[in-house]
């Protein structure tokens, strides 16, 4: 399975014990808790939480529905703005979005309303006899959606709802994207990503094809030819490199690749464990990697970041999770050298201490710091998989696809959204919003063209 770590021992704990380490990080609210928590919502007008939600969920309305024991009403309120409201309830950094904006996030008010957990309560407990959204009259249009991640799924659902046919092309063997492959296991338990996709597909009109990757066995030019429009929700498929010698040595790998294996493992005891693990990075993936390795049984997990904690993209809440799992966070140190043992395997990671110089630029001080490691996991960000668009010339902003405010790329009839586009913020909830808005833009463009014709 994980070739570069095949020399490491596997997890020692029993299967049951390990399973216990990967149950819900934040257990769901029960009915009583949901009653209490929903009653705390002040039902603000022009609510700050809604303004802070990238997917525009009418939060006061869904919470009031919960308080009035109208769970389906609550769920539909959520899902009409965000069809992946269930996974967003689990993975959203609510502490910097809705819950940060909550008017009760004020010292006199004790604490913000637990909006994320209430959203989960509604979406977990909804009981619809049939899919809650109906499709509009058929438009006769068929749209290709590339990527069955949050952006693609959201786009497909909204397109289907508007009366279009959709074919989703997915490189992996399962849908869900990062929800299925990239998020820490304890944030998305009980095969939720698949259940959510099943629910979403109930709307009808969406066909899913697997094992088809753009630039490999799928061509954008062909899609453009065969479909009325194309939506690219292909994410950022490549992991950023350290750019150091020894980057390919056994013992060093991308965190996302390890997490993907972990998420797909039926038996966690088969996973290789780096007793001494070093994670390089400062985002949620870095935290997810470090915490999961700690929970698998590593003795010492060190997360290293080249700047201070205040610059970390992982929220304070995420950093707290890491600390609670005995992850040591080392700041102001940048990767300098991969140290190998005699057999060419990773034995330690060498860092150089950093400071900000007078001009505010990050510079090395020359002071070195070696951290012994059986495994080094890089989580320094994802970048565009260049191979995916090698057959076309698509306008770009840096490593992301350039789009206009209608999610149109530089190629006619090709739209894009989610992490792969320039305004992307690597948030599931934003990808969902992109997919939804892009679907409306695609639909509008297609209908305008019909009228014009």
């Amino acid at each position, binding site marked *: 399975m994980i070739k570069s770590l095949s020399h490491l021992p596997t997890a020692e704990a029993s299967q049951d014990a390990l399973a216990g380490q990967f149950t819900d990080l934040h257990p769901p609210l029960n009915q009583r808790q949901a*009653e*209490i928590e929903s*009653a705390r919502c*002040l*039902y*603000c*007008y*022009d*609510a*700050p939480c809604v*303004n*802070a939600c990238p997917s525009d969920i009418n939060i006061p309305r869904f919470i009031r529905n919960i*308080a009035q024991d109208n769970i389906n009403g609550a769920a539909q309120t959520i899902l009409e703005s965000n069809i992946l409201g269930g996974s967003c309830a689990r993975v959203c950094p609510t502490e910097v979005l809705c819950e940060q904006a909550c*008017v*009760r996030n*004020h010292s*006199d*008010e004790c604490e913000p309303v637990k909006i994320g957990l209430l959203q989960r309560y509604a979406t977990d407990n909804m009981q619809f006899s049939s899919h809650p959204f109906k499709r509009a009259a058929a438009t006769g249009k068929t749209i290709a959606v590339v990527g069955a991640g949050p952006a693609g799924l959201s786009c497909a659902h909204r397109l289907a709802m508007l009366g279009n046919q959709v074919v989703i092309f997915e490189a992996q063997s399962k849908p869900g994207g990062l929800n299925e492959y990239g998020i820490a296991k304890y944030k998305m338990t009980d095969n939720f990503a698949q259940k959510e996709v099943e629910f979403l597909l109930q709307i009808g009109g969406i066909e899913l094809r697997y094992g088809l990757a753009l630039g490999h066995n799928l061509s954008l030019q062909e899609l453009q030819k065969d479909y009325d429009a194309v939506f690219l929700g292909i994410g950022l498929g490549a992991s950023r490199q350290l750019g150091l010698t020894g980057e390919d040595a056994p013992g060093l790998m991308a965190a996302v690749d390890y997490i993907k294996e972990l998420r797909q493992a039926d038996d966690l005891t088969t996973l290789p464990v780096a007793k001494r693990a070093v994670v390089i990075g400062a985002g949620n993936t870095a935290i997810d990697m470090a915490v999961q390795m700690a929970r698998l049984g590593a003795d010492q997990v060190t997360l290293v970041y080249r700047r201070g904690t205040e610059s970390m993209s992982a929220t304070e809440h995420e950093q707290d999770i890491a600390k609670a799992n005995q992850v040591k966070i080392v700041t102001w140190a940048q990767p300098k050298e991969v140290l190998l043992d005699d057999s060419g395997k990773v034995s330690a990671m060498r860092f150089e201490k950093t400071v900000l110089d007078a001009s505010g630029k990050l510079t090395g001080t020359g002071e070195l710091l070696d951290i012994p490691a059986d495994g080094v996991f890089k989580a320094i960000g994802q970048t565009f998989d260049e191979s995916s668009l090698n057959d076309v010339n698509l306008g770009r902003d840096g490593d992301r696809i350039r789009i206009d405010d209608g999610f149109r790329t530089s190629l006619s009839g090709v739209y894009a959204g989610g992490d792969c586009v320039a305004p992307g913020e690597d948030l599931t909830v934003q990808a969902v919003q992109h997919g939804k808005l892009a679907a409306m833009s695609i639909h509008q463009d297609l209908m305008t063209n019909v009228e014009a014709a």
Partner: protein
Amino acid sequence: MADLSINFAGIKAPNPFWLASAPPTDKAYNVVRAYEAGWGGVVWKTLGEDPAAVNVSSRYSAIYGKNKEVLGFNNIELITDRSLEINLREIEQVKKDWPDRALVVSLMVPCEEESWKYILPLVEATGADGIELNFGCPHGMPERGMGAAVGQVPEYVEMVTRWCKTYSKMPVIVKLTPNITDIRGPARAAYNGGADAVSLINTINSITSIDLDQMVARPIVGGRSTHGGYCGPAVKPIAMNMVAEIARDPATAGIPISGIGGIGSWRDAAEFIALGASSVQVCTAAMLYGFRIVEEMKDGLSRWMDEKGYNSIADFSGKAIPNTTDWKYLDMNYKVIAQIDQDKCIGCGRCYIACEDTSHQSIANLLQDNGTHKYEVKEEECVGCNLCQITCPVTDCITMVPQDTGEPYMNWTQDPRNPFREAS
């Protein structure tokens, strides 16, 4: 420490907190526990003629607030379902054991002179301090010509009161039903019949909720229901108005009033007393939390009285009555304007939407650079209705500030805008 003791129509009690005639005062066991907990008195659950009443199973229902706190409570229980003899023997013993506490016996027998003539000496022989005539029970008993069926006919009230004064030396308290158009009618009747005091309110006809699956009101008795008597915090405003109406009525001026209706805290009690009550009766709060609540009530009332310099209940009883008047005597020149404390405002926007949608469009919604909102009162538009202050979830964030209009007191009877004003 303030003296909480009272002499209510000749009935002495160490404090004004009595338990109302209801399930908590059904038998010696409960009453003794209440005295042990510190209650100043009890009104023993209503006695009637034998055979004793029979009660149904499933008797109470309620409406709730957001945190499942009971706002209003409803019951369909009848008067005591134990024999007269057992009750009388227990009353006698309890009064002997607790001589310093008030023990009033609630009574309800048919509207016939002989029935009253029979029961009154039996009660008097127990040594009880007084009787309370149950003319208010709104469910079950009126179907048999008793309870509210009597209380709703002032002539009956006066007649039965007179019988009681004729055949007993005990102080007579007439308990009034609120299920009537003008509470002053039966109060005057009681007064004219010689009542020593009135107590109010009894419960209000009510249906608290419907089981929408079974399509039946609560409480459910074998698939059916009936209206009950409503009490608890929700009825307090209705009760206080009725107490004030009687206290303000020259025809019954000075009659002692025992205030009843949603009292659960010392502040509730103080409010009733301020409107003219000189004792208060509690039931729902005790039924929800137990007898121990009287400790906080006594402590709170006593500390507040000390703070205000009131040495006794009589010192402040009725103090709010002179300020309770008819609408036409309110000052047309008085003006308040809402003021929002921006440091306390949490930006929920409820004052804005309440005023904008349903009142006078007097609050401006100002979008700030950081995406939040700031709410400001448009003083020239504000009519001082209090709505924003009421909907604001933050204590003391919105205050209603009196304005100096420079205009003298002028009521509606003097107002030039009133076509029917009195000639000056």
